[in-house]
């Protein structure tokens, strides 16, 4: 085989400024993430302009730390991978322009990477893929089911028609007056409660792998409102548990059905909501019964990071995909 491929990845699509260096798409040499969660907490969500301001202040610090931790010379780096979309356009622009400046200054190839491809490839940092594979991507911005028959080939078989799962979590957390980000808070609360309320499950058409969470969110709002009008008080723990049960039921059922239909050899879960303990245990149980290997990355690789971008960029690099210096940031972008 030819020499090892070393890729530097940059990710700035939301509120993390991240740079990582990865060898052969599998071995992390460094993975630096500068999170802005504290800056956005008081606004109850990510403010795009503030996120973009942070990125431009952080980017060279994070680059420097990633280079130092990897203890590597520029000569050994084969390419620069960067998230080109989807995401917050102002935030993406900082990473994209930094990547272009690096590629130009250091005479390295530039590789634009789809953010979701990154989330999927986070799993390859743990274990080699077995095709065909099914990926469930659940985060604040995405809920998708993707089939991969080979490296770098993505077929989206299902996606959300309205809110992303993580978005629904954040909205329900707000209804329950839980701090931002709401996902982990609901997960925690749900464990102390019971499914006492039968919230709806949006199955959509029988053969559909799409998702919809806005109806569920409305149902939670109405339930709380009606109880209040009747002067009753519902236990927040039970609301959390009931809401979470609905989300997990839909996610698990559709993932299992897709895994069977496509005869996949591996199922991987990616995105911030992959850290949800309830979702993890539900999927683990189902796929253990089916004897299909299930892979969920550790928390640090579930949430946004640049190692995943470098990992996905490695495959694109090996397949000869290159971006020009006119690479732009794209707020929305198809995975293909």
């Amino acid at each position, binding site marked *: 085989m030819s020499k090892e491929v070393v890729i530097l990845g940059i990710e700035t699509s939301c509120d993390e400024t991240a740079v990582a260096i990865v060898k052969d798409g599998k071995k992390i040499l460094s993975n630096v993430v500068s999170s802005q969660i504290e800056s956005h907490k*008081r*606004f109850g969500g990510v*403010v795009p*302009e*503030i996120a*973009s*301001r942070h*990125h*431009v*202040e952080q*980017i*060279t*610090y994070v*680059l*420097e730390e990633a280079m130092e931790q990897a203890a590597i010379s520029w000569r050994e780096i084969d390419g620069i991978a960067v998230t080109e979309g989807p995401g917050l356009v*102002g935030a993406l*622009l*900082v*990473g*994209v*322009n*930094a990547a*272009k*400046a*690096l590629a*130009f*200054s*250091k*005479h390295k190839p530039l590789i634009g990477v789809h953010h979701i491809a990154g989330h999927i490839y986070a799993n390859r940092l743990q274990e080699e893929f077995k095709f065909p594979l099914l990926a469930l991507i659940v985060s604040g911005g995405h809920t998708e089911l993707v089939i991969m028959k080979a490296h770098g080939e993505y077929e989206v078989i299902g996606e959300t028609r309205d809110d992303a799962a993580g978005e629904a979590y954040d909205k329900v957390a707000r209804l329950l007056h839980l701090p931002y980000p709401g996902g982990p808070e609901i997960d925690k609360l749900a464990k102390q409660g019971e499914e006492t309320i039968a919230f709806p499950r949006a199955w959509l058409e029988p053969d559909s792998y799409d998702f919809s969470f806005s109806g569920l969110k409305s149902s939670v709002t109405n339930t709380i409102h009606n109880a209040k009008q009747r002067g009753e008080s519902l236990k927040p723990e039970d609301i959390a548990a009931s809401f979470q049960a609905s989300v997990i039921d839909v996610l698990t059922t559709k993932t299992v059905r897709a895994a069977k239909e496509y005869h996949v050899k591996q199922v991987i879960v990616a995105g911030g909501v992959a850290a949800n303990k309830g979702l993890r245990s539900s999927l683990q149980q189902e796929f253990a019964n089916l004897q299909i290997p299930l892979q969920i990355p550790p928390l640090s690789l579930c949430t946004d990071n640049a190692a995943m971008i470098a990992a996905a960029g490695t495959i694109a690099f090996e397949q000869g995909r290159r971006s*020009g*210096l*006119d*690479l*732009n*940031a794209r707020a929305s972008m198809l995975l293909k």
Partner: protein
Amino acid sequence: MNILAMDTSNQVLGVAIQQDDTILGEIVTNLPKNHSVRLMPAIDKLMQEVNMKPEQLDKIVVAKGPGSYTGVRIGLATAKTMAWALNIPVIGVSSLEVLAYQGRFFNGIICPFFDARRGLAFAGCYRFENNQLQILRKEENVAMQDLLEELKSLERSILFLSPDISIHQEQIISIVGNRAVIPEEPVHVIRPAHVIATAKEKQAGSTHTLRPNYLRLAEAEAKWLESNKGC
């Protein structure tokens, strides 16, 4: 000494390369097009044109705003990362200062501004003395009306420089009257070579800490501060 200059802080996209005291080349466009797509190709093209490699650069200068928040960040992300990667200094200069510099032969007050919508402008006041720009009124985000009333009370002629001059020309003349001097179109367009000239006496600070000159808080932050007064 090879210096690369870039400006994407407003509609104009400008790139210049200076060697010692000679401007080797400039690319300037004044088009409502995407800076992110065009900045790096413009730098690449000009570097090829003057036959220079990135490693031969000794310094980078960049217009750090005010202007379009996104435009300013495209320039700074590019300039900072290039400077860091090449291990050379980077200097950020105020876009208003560069514009003021373009009025350096004017004997009076120089008032550069950029339109900031809803009757507001990013503006400052300068004068050119002893071969140097002196700041007379600090740069800020100000109501054009207030600024003009203030300038009217000064018994001096005032040079107005702005790529957005047409938006405010009527108001300027109606308030400041014949003491307002408004030059022809090309003087209002920032030339990247002047970004280099404006940076000449300035020392580079740390690349990491170079920040845009927004002159305005992010809207969410301003609102938050407004509703959390006193805590």
